[in-house]
């Protein structure tokens, strides 16, 4: 049992626990908080996979930005704290479907092994990503920035438009 193994198990346990809590808690805010654990644990998983830069981004974006946005969303829209359960039949049906899905995928991936791994990956990881991004992937990268801009403007307009209309009506 190497240290990597122990780290992986702990992280995986945390991530799954966070996920299960997300499903089972009733308070909406608690759910989001449970998910923060999952996100951070996933960042840890990335580190075990020699992806330091992705791990950092994960912490920044998910644990930071997205969770905060979600909390804002909850606060802006809250009108009932407690989450009501969905009908039992629906839960069972969905659960069965997903269980089936799980079993199929499990059967397919359990023995997957390509027999080799990239040992160089952690060497100057961030620098290499930077070089790749600005050379080979420059066009997708720029497109992503455009997408972000569009998303920014789009969300502002979506969130604002109603007020304008109401004013216009007045």
């Amino acid at each position, binding site marked *: 049992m190497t240290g*990597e193994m122990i780290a*992986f198990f702990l992280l995986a346990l945390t*991530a*799954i626990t966070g*996920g299960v809590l*997300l*499903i089972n808690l009733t308070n*909406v805010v608690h759910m*989001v908080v449970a*998910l923060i654990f*999952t996100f951070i644990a*996933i960042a840890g*998983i*990335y580190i075990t*996979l020699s*992806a330091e*830069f*992705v791990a950092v981004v*994960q912490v920044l*974006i*998910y644990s930071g*930005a997205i969770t905060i*946005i979600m909390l804002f*969303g*909850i606060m*802006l*829209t809250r*009108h009932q704290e407690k*989450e*009501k359960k*969905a009908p039992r039949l*629906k839960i069972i049906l*969905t659960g069965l479907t*997903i269980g089936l*899905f799980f079993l199929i995928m499990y059967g397919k*991936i359990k023995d*997957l092994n*390509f027999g*080799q*791994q*990239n*040992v160089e*990956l952690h060497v100057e*990881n961030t620098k290499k*990503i930077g070089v*790749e*991004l600005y050379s080979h992937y420059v066009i997708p990268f720029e497109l*992503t920035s455009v*997408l*972000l801009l*569009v*998303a*920014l403007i*789009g*969300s*502002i307009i*979506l*969130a604002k*438009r*109603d007020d304008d209309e109401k004013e216009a009506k007045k």
Partner: protein
Amino acid sequence: MSAVPLPAYLMLALILFCIGLFGALTKRNAVIVLISIELMLNAVNINLVAFAKYSLNPGLTGQIFSLFTITVAAAEAAVGLAILIALYRNRKTVNVDEMDTMKR
């Protein structure tokens, strides 16, 4: 140095994906549905990064791809919430059950 095999990562991703899927399909609060979708995206990212390390021709591509995914997910979360808020203003609810305008 090998220790954790590829299937372990894939399994973790699968479990998280299933949890996310279940949440997205059963939770009634729209915010939670959005968060569940984020969880699914994260599960996918784990796969990408894992394949960047263990695969037939490993490399940085997987990690870079996961970066793009994260970016898009962030944008999606922002737009999704904006829509949610707009909807909430109109209908005074974030309950997914009550959003059935498609039927009407």
